[in-house]
């Protein structure tokens, strides 16, 4: 077990990186191919192969280069794009439109997503029912399977879910990477508490109205998934809110600030995941002995989890999503993945390897279905 590392010591040799990637190669092969590769449909087989190669090359590169964030971000962004692609193409195929009708609501055919979870809790406790027009055990985005996936992921990764599991996060993560330097540099620290205010409001309004108010009125990702048919002033107002919030918080502000502003200032599930960061065994630690207090990590953090005062005290806040951007920004390896209970500056490689395997495996398997679908759709379009 290594005690301290300096410089680029997280890098591994080609052979060692390949060895570390073997378990991932085997497991993702099983999940992506279903254990039995089917070559009868060439575009499906090719899509599976591309997805399989993509995830494993990215994982290999994490070990080989010692860098985490940029390879994570590639899969994370592809995941977000592919999910929207899958959803939109499904809807266009089934309904010729991105909007859902009243009949879809009455027949409980709306795909469920994890952002509904904060709104479900109080009504489930008081009415013993779920306030969402979806299917409990549906084959696509069923409520029970999404809840299980989120529960386990948030228990294991804490707020890491927001950077390794959320199929929306890739949108503002992607836009926050376009500019090399931020235009807006100073943002008040208080805004990071906004998701808790949103959580408070949506939990309350959803419980009292018995409807998922965040989905009905706020969710910016309705702009890239599906939304209610515009048939009244209220539904037009909702569409206006969805598009404005998507443009503002997912596109423009991340572009100008290099921060994930939707995740930092709006997402109510992010607030719950922040609390679950207290349970997860994995964390980001600051090795004060190696820290030169250059604060490059503070500037790099896309979720306002790091402050100069925190760095001086050797503390990373509960807002951390373990994306690895700060770790990659630190040339002295003073900030690193760690395990709770293990002192900072020790077992750096072990903690990183274990965390990367768990978090990347979750993302790779969770995202593979929609990525395969997207590649297959694109291949069908091209050929």
């Amino acid at each position: 077990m290594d005690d301290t590392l300096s410089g680029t010591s997280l890098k591994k040799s080609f052979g060692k990186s390949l060895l570390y990637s073997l378990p991932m190669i085997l497991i993702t092969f099983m999940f992506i191919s279903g254990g039995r590769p089917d070559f009868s449909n060439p575009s499906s087989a090719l899509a599976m192969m591309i997805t399989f190669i993509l995830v494993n090359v990215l994982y290999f590169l994490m070990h080989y280069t010692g860098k985490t964030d940029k390879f994570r971000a590639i899969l994370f962004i592809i995941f977000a794009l592919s999910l929207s692609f899958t959803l939109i193409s499904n809807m266009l195929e089934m309904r010729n439109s991105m909007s859902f009708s009243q009949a879809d609501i009455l027949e409980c055919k709306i795909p469920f997503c994890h952002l509904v979870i904060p709104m479900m809790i109080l009504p489930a406790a008081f009415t013993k029912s779920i306030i969402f027009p979806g299917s409990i055990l549906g084959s696509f985005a069923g409520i029970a399977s999404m809840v299980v996936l989120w529960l386990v992921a948030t228990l294991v990764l804490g707020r890491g879910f927001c950077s390794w599991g959320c199929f929306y996060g890739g949108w503002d993560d992607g836009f926050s990477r376009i500019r090399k330097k931020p235009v807006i540099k100073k943002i008040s620290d208080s805004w990071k508490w906004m998701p808790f205010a949103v959580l408070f409001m949506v939990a309350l309004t959803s419980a009292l109205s018995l409807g998922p108010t965040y989905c009905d009125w706020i969710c910016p990702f309705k702009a890239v998934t599906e939304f209610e048919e515009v048939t009244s002033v209220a539904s037009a107002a909702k569409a206006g809110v969805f598009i404005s919030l998507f443009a503002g918080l997912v596109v423009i502000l991340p572009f100008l600030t290099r921060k994930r502003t939707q995740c930092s200032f709006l997402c109510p599930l992010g607030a719950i995941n922040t609390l679950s960061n207290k349970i997860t065994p994995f964390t980001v630690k600051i090795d004060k002995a190696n820290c030169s207090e250059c604060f490059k990590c503070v500037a790099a953090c896309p979720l306002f989890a790091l402050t100069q005062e925190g760095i001086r005290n050797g503390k990373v806040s509960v807002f951390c999503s373990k994306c690895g951007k700060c770790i990659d920004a630190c040339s002295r390896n003073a900030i690193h993945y760690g395990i709770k209970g293990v002192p900072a500056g020790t077992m750096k490689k072990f903690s990183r390897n274990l965390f990367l395997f768990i978090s990347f495996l979750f993302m790779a398997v969770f995202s593979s279905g929609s990525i395969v679908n997207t590649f297959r759709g694109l291949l069908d379009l091209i050929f």
Partner: protein
Amino acid sequence: MLESFILGLSTGSACLLTCGMVMFPYLMSGSSGVKRITIDLSVFLLTRMLVYALLSVAAWYLGRAFFTNQVVRSVVPGILYIVFAGMLIWYAIDRNRQKNCPAKFVTTVNNRKLIPIFLGVVNSLGFCPALYLVLTKGASEESLAGSLTAFLAFFIGSSLWFLPLPLAGKIKKKKILETIGILATGLAGIIFIIKGLTSLIGGIING
């Protein structure tokens, strides 16, 4: 009813956290034990409820006098919602809001027994944007019962925050809770801006 309750609940947190520390020592001064605190708090809350009941009646009569047809009943409250919701958002982001707590005038009252009543009146008549919004809601209601319900829901929502008042001094993360409360107040403002816009556009289309 739902909107008024949420407005009360969201602004109540900010109201308590900005004014609570001014009100608390006076409301609880000289009190001996839980019984005294409970009586004082009950008198304070009862006074608030009575003042709100009177305001709901006044708002409804004003609404009936001025909102003479369905279009006006939609357009005028729509504009008022937008203006007052804008003020509520400004209140949420204004750093000087703590200086505006009306309860600080409690020092002018000498009679100890009158303090909870005085605080109840001052607190409910401390004309803040949230109260303007609920006044607009009361005025635009079809019936007096609707107006009374709106104020009652606002009263219940805001009063929930006063119940643990005796414990206010012991809250550890007061600054964080205050920040979340203020942000929730701003969000309530946004909800009412959307409500105002919907009402205004609906009124214009119907007109």
